[in-house]
């Protein structure tokens, strides 16, 4: 009765690998806790990490449950969430 109740955890996956995330955690905090900093690949060939931490720079975009351009710093984890880092939105050109 004197202990704090344990924080709820949710099963999530990062780039196909299963792991756990704390309830209320942002995707960015989760990724950083796992040592992933270079997480956002743009269609212009750059790979960025979080810059502003507050949702204005769009440098921390990852794919969440198949949807691209999700700002990792704004999205809260949910059970079964599939997070993919370094995903371009445009398909690679087959000619190159």
């Amino acid at each position: 009765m004197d202990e704090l109740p344990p924080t709820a955890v949710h099963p999530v996956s990062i780039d196909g690998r299963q792991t756990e995330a704390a309830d209320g955690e942002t995707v960015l905090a989760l990724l950083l806790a796992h040592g992933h900093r270079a997480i956002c690949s743009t269609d212009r060939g750059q790979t960025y990490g979080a810059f502003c931490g507050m949702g204005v720079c769009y440098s921390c975009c990852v794919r969440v449950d198949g949807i691209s351009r999700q700002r990792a710093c704004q999205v809260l984890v949910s059970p079964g969430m599939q997070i993919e880092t370094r995903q371009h939105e445009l398909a690679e050109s087959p000619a190159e």
Partner: protein
Amino acid sequence: MTPAPSTTLCPTIIGGGPAGFHAAVQFAELGWRSRVIDESPAFGGAIYRAPSQPGLEQSMDAKTQGKVASYRALYARHEEQIEFLGGTQLLGPVDGAKTLGILSQGHFSSLTYDHLLVCTGCFERAQPFPGWTLPGVMTVGGLQLLVKQGGVRPCDSAVLVGTGPLLLIAARQLHNAGIEIQGVFESGRRLDLLKRIPGLLHGVDLLAEGMGCLAFLRQKGIPVHFGWGIVEARGDGELSEVVVAPYDRQWRPIRERAKSFQVSGAGIEYGFESRSELTRLLGLEHIEDEESGSLPMSDPWGRASKPGIYVAGDGVGVDGAQVAELQGRLAALACLLDAGALEEQEAHRLVSPLRRQIQRRQTFRRAFFDFSRRRRGLLELPSDDTLICRCEAVERRQIDQAIEQGARDLTTLKMVTRIGMGDCQGKMCGSFCAQYLRYKTGTRDVGHLSARFPLAPLPFSALAGQGEDR
């Protein structure tokens, strides 16, 4: 004053940070409902938002914890009167009078307002320099947010570089979170600050906090250098090294005396910019402020240039959270007075102490302006291949080429190079590009990057029928 039961006055407040929240509280204290819209799941803004993770609050520093708790208590007291629409992005005006498009949980909808209070706050300026786009380089506020609200250490070691009191406050917070702060580098000169003591005395408590931070850092052996600034960040795919140097009077690095630090993190802060995207979309009049950027014009009570619209907080000029709280209350009182819900005498009685306090705090903040004023050396920091626009990966050399070809305003620069066309809508690159254009061409008025609807990326799926699942 008891409101008439049949009243429909319910102002809409954009932004639930210190200004917006206190506007809502002020309405509630006088018996009026309001509706607050914020992108985040909780009010408080970047500075005082409670962490979404339960239990993290205990690891915040005492002052922040106290503020978070006081906000929670205030909200609990007035919950009945405040409708909080969290997780909601404001897209801008849509067809129809006084109608705004919003995006929430992937669904687009619209809301109409009768009275609107815009309290959209500010963001930390992006200062380009070689290597600034390496993962690991962040704004100082970004590092703070991850530690304060994210419960994570974004790096093991860091340097903080830039200007203004935030550097010291953040250094202490980050140190306490277990990050090795190898140095704090303030580009302003100590002498410039000492000259401002009279102004600084208008905020004795804040001055004491700053001195306390300095003493703390000294006690922990964390070096604080005045008159030093950023030169370069290096690393192979990620940040591993930061180069700083003493700055001359124009903030140009004296490279022969540069020092390098092996760190995995860097917080770089060279000022703040008010968020004026919405106020510009609303067609309000603006003025240009050297420190804060485009600011919606307002009278001393916070009335904007169109009736029924009020502005408060860092979005009207970056004066900090305390001023924002006071301005939020002030704007709410102006709104009630204008709506006939408050008597003139009562309004003045409530407003006078607010305006006195605002003035004192602003005098304090403005004492820093000359000390922290960005000098032209910052415009010369980027190399040819330094990215200026992150979203569209535009290098400085491309901007130089556009200028050679005759570009003299931001809109032309945007058309030619694509700066400002990405997701951030020019928030990261716009201010630098404007200053760079002025600097390189001598043109005074380089115009603006037009704010356009939608203010946030709007997926087509959000426009699918209401209530339809993906």
